[in-house]
């Protein structure tokens, strides 16, 4: 019997662990706590911090004095994880791994290939994005076991959060990373839901704040991703019920991009005065811009108009080389508020053209940095697929993420969402607030995960959501081939929108012939907005609101008993596990089953299986 529920926010730039005991002796409500993660902060120096920066440094053999990297549980760790990795990475970026999470959901590179760090010099043994994720999870396990030898991590109930927009392959990779890190079977939870659970945890009287018919918009702006979800409040036999009704597209755009944009601007200001900054100076500038943002956009009435930026000289001359600059509130407002959160109309659509400033080798950053445009599009799509007017009109707004520590950003988001809703003469959106807001913005996802883990075993409230997309398998039409013309594809609905945990759907409508001993591949599509396609339905064409994912594969191993059967007719079956993982199976008439693997390979024009 586990003693604790452990919630892990495996973030793009920061990770955190929250925990809560299953029961407390005096009958009080169990309290969710943040776990201080022991990590290296300087050579030879460890500290317990609430956040574990998702950074991994690959040290060279003689780079550090012997023993300088020792952790309480490992004298000679192969990598540096956390705070010191990030710090040393500034000085030597070619050995630093960051944003591993973004690579898990990336379709242009295989996350099981050793590709990180991208710019590592010849001779450095690169690691895979999957291994990097495993290292963070492993660090949590070791640090926990160090602090709680009496309640081993392996015996606890563990939840890991992922962006709501993560596709099945990325969710499975997260699950696999956890398995590699020696975790017990972990439950996967979506981040915006976790943020909402954190609000419930902080507000025991939450039932008085929402009522049936309400629609809650959760905007979660993490370090590297932005996630939208809509949660509907309904009533079922006198009890409030929560349904997650829509999630947004995967948006690779977060608080780090915003701080970086300010730092790049400040760097240009220095450059105009003839000063070029090196990597270490730029990093110092970046940190100061982050601090400047929080001060200048704090929303307090006695706002300073500008914030100094001081770049100390390199070398032993400190004052001689010091460069001074400043950034004004006006500049930072126009960069962040107008750049990332512009006041736009409800019909605004994000631009498809890429902005160079947001590019990094390999990762598909959102082309348009305007979060509000993405949000408008999300609300329109949500309304369209629910068949309810032009725009989904949330009644409540829950904001989460470190970037919202700048109160002016929070106000702007609130104001913009309200402008869309009040246009139609409705009452405005109500913001859901937490009491200890500042700390929560960074920790809510981990806290909410721990709370949910507790709630799912007891009578606590659960958000019903299920799979946030509809999934299809592509089937080639059996028309005679015409040279130069692609055969039209049909779409066979295999997973309906909202399929819940623990349910299975059989799809006898379509039989597939699989060849033993040969890998078979299916083209795989998903849609965020087609919510009414029933399982087993064959659609005549791939419509525009479907996205093609990496293909899914199955391999039927040859039989041992020598009875060679060449072709096995199978039907498909889809199933969502209790831990929230989507699985697709091939089932033969005699009951044998093979699991379809979500491929992580680069998407290519795969050969589809004939039906």
């Amino acid at each position: 019997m586990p003693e604790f529920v452990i919630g892990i926010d495996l973030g793009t730039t920061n990770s955190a662990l929250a925990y809560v005991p299953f029961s407390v002796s005096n009958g009080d409500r169990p309290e969710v706590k943040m776990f201080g993660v022991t990590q290296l902060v300087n050579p030879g120096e460890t500290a317990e911090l609430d956040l574990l920066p998702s950074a991994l440094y690959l040290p060279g053999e003689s780079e550090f004095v012997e023993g300088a990297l020792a952790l309480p549980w490992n004298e000679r760790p192969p990598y540096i994880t956390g705070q010191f990795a990030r710090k040393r990475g500034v000085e030597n970026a070619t050995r630093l791994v960051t944003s591993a999470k973004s690579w898990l959901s990336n379709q242009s590179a295989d996350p099981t290939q050793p590709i990180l760090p991208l710019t590592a010099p010849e001779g450095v043994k690169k690691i895979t994005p999957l291994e990097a994720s495993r290292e963070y999870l492993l660090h949590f396990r070791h640090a926990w076991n160090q602090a709680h030898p009496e309640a081993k991590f392996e015996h606890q109930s563990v939840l890991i959060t992922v962006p709501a927009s993560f596709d099945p392959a990325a969710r499975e990779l997260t699950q696999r990373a956890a398995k590699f890190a020696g975790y017990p079977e972990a439950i996967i939870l979506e981040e915006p839901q976790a943020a909402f659970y954190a609000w419930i945890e902080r507000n025991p009287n939450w039932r008085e704040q929402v009522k049936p018919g309400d629609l809650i918009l959760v905007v979660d702006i993490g370090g590297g991703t932005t996630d939208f979800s809509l949660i509907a409040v309904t009533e079922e036999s006198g009890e409030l019920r929560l349904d997650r009704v829509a999630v947004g597209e995967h948006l690779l755009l977060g608080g780090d991009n915003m701080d970086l944009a300010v730092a790049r601007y400040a760097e240009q200001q220095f450059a105009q005065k003839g000063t070029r900054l090196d990597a270490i100076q730029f990093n110092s500038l970046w940190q100061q811009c982050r601090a400047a943002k929080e001060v200048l956009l704090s929303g307090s009435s006695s706002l300073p108009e500008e914030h100094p930026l001081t770049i100390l000289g390199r070398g032993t001359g400190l004052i001689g080389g010091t460069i001074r600059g400043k950034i004004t509130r006006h500049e930072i407002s126009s960069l962040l508020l107008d750049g990332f959160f512009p006041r736009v109309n409800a019909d605004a659509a994000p631009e498809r053209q890429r902005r160079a400033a947001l590019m990094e080798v390999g990762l598909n950053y959102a082309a348009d940095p305007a979060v509000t445009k993405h949000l408008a599009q999300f609300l329109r799509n949500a309304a369209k697929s629910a068949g309810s007017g032009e725009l989904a009109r949330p009644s409540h707004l829950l904001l989460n993420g470190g970037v919202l520590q700048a109160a002016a950003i929070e106000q702007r988001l609130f104001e913009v969402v309200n402008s869309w809703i009040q246009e139609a003469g409705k009452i405005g959106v109500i913001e859901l607030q937490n009491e200890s807001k500042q700390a929560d913005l960074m920790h809510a996802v981990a806290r909410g995960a721990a709370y949910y883990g507790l709630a799912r075993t007891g009578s606590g409230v659960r958000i019903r959501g299920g799979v946030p997309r509809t999934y299809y398998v592509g089937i080639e039409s059996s028309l005679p081939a015409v040279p130069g013309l692609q055969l039209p594809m049909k779409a066979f609905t295999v997973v309906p929108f909202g399929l819940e945990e623990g349910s299975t759907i059989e799809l006898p409508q379509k039989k597939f012939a699989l060849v033993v001993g040969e890998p078979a591949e299916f083209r795989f599509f998903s849609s965020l907005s087609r919510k009414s396609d029933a399982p087993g339905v064959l659609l005549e064409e791939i419509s525009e609101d479907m996205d093609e994912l990496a293909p899914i594969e199955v391999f039927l191993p040859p039989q041992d008993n020598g009875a060679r059967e060449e072709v096995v007719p199978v039907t498909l079956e889809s199933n969502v596990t209790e831990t929230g993982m989507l699985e697709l199976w091939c089932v033969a008439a005699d009951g044998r089953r093979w699991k379809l693997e979500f491929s992580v390979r680069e998407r290519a024009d795969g050969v589809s299986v004939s039906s």
Partner: protein
Amino acid sequence: MSRVSAAFRSFFSILFSGVLPEDIAYQFGFTKAKAVPATPAREAPKASDGALQILHVLQRDARLVDFLMEDINSYSDDQIGAAVRKLHADCRASLTRHLSLNPVIDGIEGTYQALDGSKTPDANRIKLIGNVPANGKVPGGTLRHRGWIASSVNLPSLGKQDPAILAPAELEIE
């Protein structure tokens, strides 16, 4: 062994490491209880190591040594001010992370502070100034400076790090 040399060695050994050198102890008839080998053959830390380590930390986190060793005569107050503001913030953050500093007397400076008049105050903690009576016993006085006490020190173990290196030279490979 000459008496002068033995005396000096004993004096400094006790002063800095708190023990009598073993050969001298033996010669004078003191024998040690069988020592339990604590950590295998590690060089005993010198008294100066802690001092150097603090400098190392303040240089690393806030570049204090760079600042103190720089000739600042040619710079304007403005230039110095800009750098020192950051240096001050960094030094303070570093210091508070490694030491917890508290006032010796947590009172308001400039106001009367009562003491136990029946005994002389601990000279470590309280320095009497001005019209101090011959027996050193005072019922109180005006608090001029609250004093500082490091109530806890939290420095990492040095390990194999050379304490004499306050900052390594940095070479950038282009």
